[in-house]
């Protein structure tokens, strides 16, 4: 009964997202959001990845940006024309996911006995290490230049009635919906239950036959795999792997804020959180900046540049959430209804 309610939330959220480009087409250009939306949805995928480790299994993970970077760079290396591989788009995205899973498992190996704060520090350190490695392995990663140009999938580039932006939008939305759907199913299987059990009580879970080390390894791998797929999509959308410092600690923190605002451990929550947090950053503030630059001319007050507001808004959002609705906007089943 409550589970059906959660499914409804997810379906409603995805339904609303599906009609955004249609609504958009009747709005004036200044208010259209479709071209800005794909990165937001890609971040929702990162949020889902983080949910696996932090939301479901209760492992505080502060290094998801590293896996986004690994995904982006893997995708870039195997598709970019400066290297001989140039494999098809879909294979590259899947390969990025696999490489992400492998590195996620690698990170989990030394951290299997850690929990809480200690694990957070280790994952944070891992995030920094990955950035440094990408910067210094310049024979492969081109250092701070990033790898470009990168292409999109054929489905986005061929001529069709829909604009490229709209096709990107639906492609990412489809992937997001697919992942959310599969995750929902996994949560209702013994595997997913063992993740939740590990979060509730590690000792009791292991007395039920759950191997905590193996389960943590699996959740880290799945989490990293999803983040890496998101990284590959992002690189493909932006046409460049970007530079290593694009995947810094702030990205990990933003992902964490997203899942906290949406509701830790909730699938629709992670998506909603991403739309709110990243949406404010890359859509609302960007539109506001356009508008302000039209209205006021020549003023150099820093407060008139809305992109400077973003961390203030993030901070404020977190403080307000913790104070008034600490379980998040769309809390998972256990905290709702009681």
């Amino acid at each position, binding site marked *: 009964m409550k589970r059906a309610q959660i499914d409804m939330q997810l379906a409603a959220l995805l339904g609303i997202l599906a009609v955004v480009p249609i609504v958009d087409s009747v709005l004036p250009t200044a208010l259209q959001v479709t071209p800005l939306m794909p990165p937001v949805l890609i971040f929702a995928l990162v949020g889902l990845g983080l949910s696996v480790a932090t939301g479901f299994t209760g492992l505080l993970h502060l290094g998801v940006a590293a896996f986004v970077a690994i995904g982006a760079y893997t995708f870039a290396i195997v598709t970019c024309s*400066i290297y*001989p591989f140039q494999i098809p788009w879909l294979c590259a995205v899947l390969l990025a996911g696999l490489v992400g899973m492998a590195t996620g498992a690698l990170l989990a190996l030394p951290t299997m006995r850690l929990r809480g704060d200690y694990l957070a520090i280790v994952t944070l350190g891992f995030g920094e290490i990955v950035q440094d490695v990408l910067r210094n392995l310049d024979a492969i990663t081109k250092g701070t230049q990033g790898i470009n140009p990168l292409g999109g999938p054929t489905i986005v580039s061929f001529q069709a009635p829909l604009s490229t932006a709209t096709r990107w939008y639906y492609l990412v939305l489809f992937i997001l919906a697919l992942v959310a759907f599969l995750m929902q199913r996994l949560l209702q299987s013994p595997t997913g239950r063992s993740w*939740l059990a590990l979060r*509730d*009580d590690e000792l009791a879970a292991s*007395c*039920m036959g759950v*191997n905590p*080390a193996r389960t943590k390894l699996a959740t880290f791998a799945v989490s990293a795999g999803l983040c890496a797929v998101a990284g590959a999509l992002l690189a493909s959308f932006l046409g460049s792997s970007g530079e290593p410092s694009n995947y810094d600690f702030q990205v990990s923190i933003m992902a964490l804020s997203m899942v906290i605002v949406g509701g830790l451990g909730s699938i629709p929550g992670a998506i909603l959180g991403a739309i709110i947090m990243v949406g404010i950053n890359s859509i609302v503030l960007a539109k506001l900046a356009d508008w302000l630059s039209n209205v006021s001319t020549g003023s150099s007050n820093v407060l008139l540049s809305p992109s400077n507001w973003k961390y203030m808004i993030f901070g404020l959002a977190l403080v307000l959430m913790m104070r008034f609705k600490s379980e998040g906007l769309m809390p998972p089943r256990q905290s709702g209804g009681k």
Partner: protein
Amino acid sequence: MTVTSNAAPLLALRNVTVQFGGLTAAHDVTLDVTDGQIAAVIGPNGAGKTTVFNCVTGIYAPSSGTIEVRGRDIREPLTWLVLGKSLGIGCIFGLALMLGVNAQILWDASINQLYVYEQQFDWAAAGAAFVSTLRSQDSSLTWGIFIFGSLLAAAGSFTMWQRTRHTPYTAVHRKIARTFQNIRLFRSMSALENVLMGMQSVHRSHVVPALLRTKHFAQQERIRREEARELLDFVGLSDVEHTLASALPYGSQRRLEIARALASKPNLILLDEPAAGMNPSEMAALTALIAKIRDRGTTVLLIEHHMKLVMGISDHITVLEYGEKIAEGPPDAVKQDPKVIAAYLGDTHNDH
């Protein structure tokens, strides 16, 4: 039910000692649990009862002594497969480390120097360049790193295995389940889901069928739910299957823990103070339940402070004091034992 060999007891502790630093929590405890019994461990607070339980379920490792289940060491046996796995992990790690250390040079030689933009790439030449560059490297950077990495990872994974030879999740595969003194239910799950979690060790479930929701998976899940409902019914909780575990009243939480432990189809169930905090009528129901569990074919080993309950249903009682066994035998004999009266019953003559 289970095939019982009369030769070996279901559970046998042989001279088990547990030390935490200088503190000896259990000293030289020898204990047999026979099939089909209700056995009890009693003793004053701090006598080491829960320590013994924790040893059996792999939460602590005994400092000395052995624990046997039907005559076999409770720890996972050391097999060639374990050694092979450790070596395999070692080799993979060593190889990865070696390639990682030489990544830049290898990439430069085999890709950057050979690939001409938008020209056909000669993979054979790249492979040859890769191998020759690797060969021309200083051997300390290739073989040295490989051997170092392999040894490190092999030793690491073997140590890891050794530490997990006897853990709660291996104990449950030896058909030993337990409940906890301070209730440890999965708070965010419903009563039914808690019992489903208890089945984790019996039903192997794979991820892919779960994602595709195959017919077989759906059927398995239905069977699991059916079994879980039967167990809830068995402990008298059939009306609350969808209630969150944390929202249940205290007595029901204790019974839910028992249902969850039974879900792993154990041969032996350890109950750690199942009657703690219960009122007399709840306790009477619990006594009946414990007898029912035994009649079902599950041997029971319990820790309990309520003398009435223990003396009423136990077939065999072991008395611990300061980590040592001071008496054992049937309830009537234990009741008469002067050592026991002095240590335990003597203090609580005006019963509670």
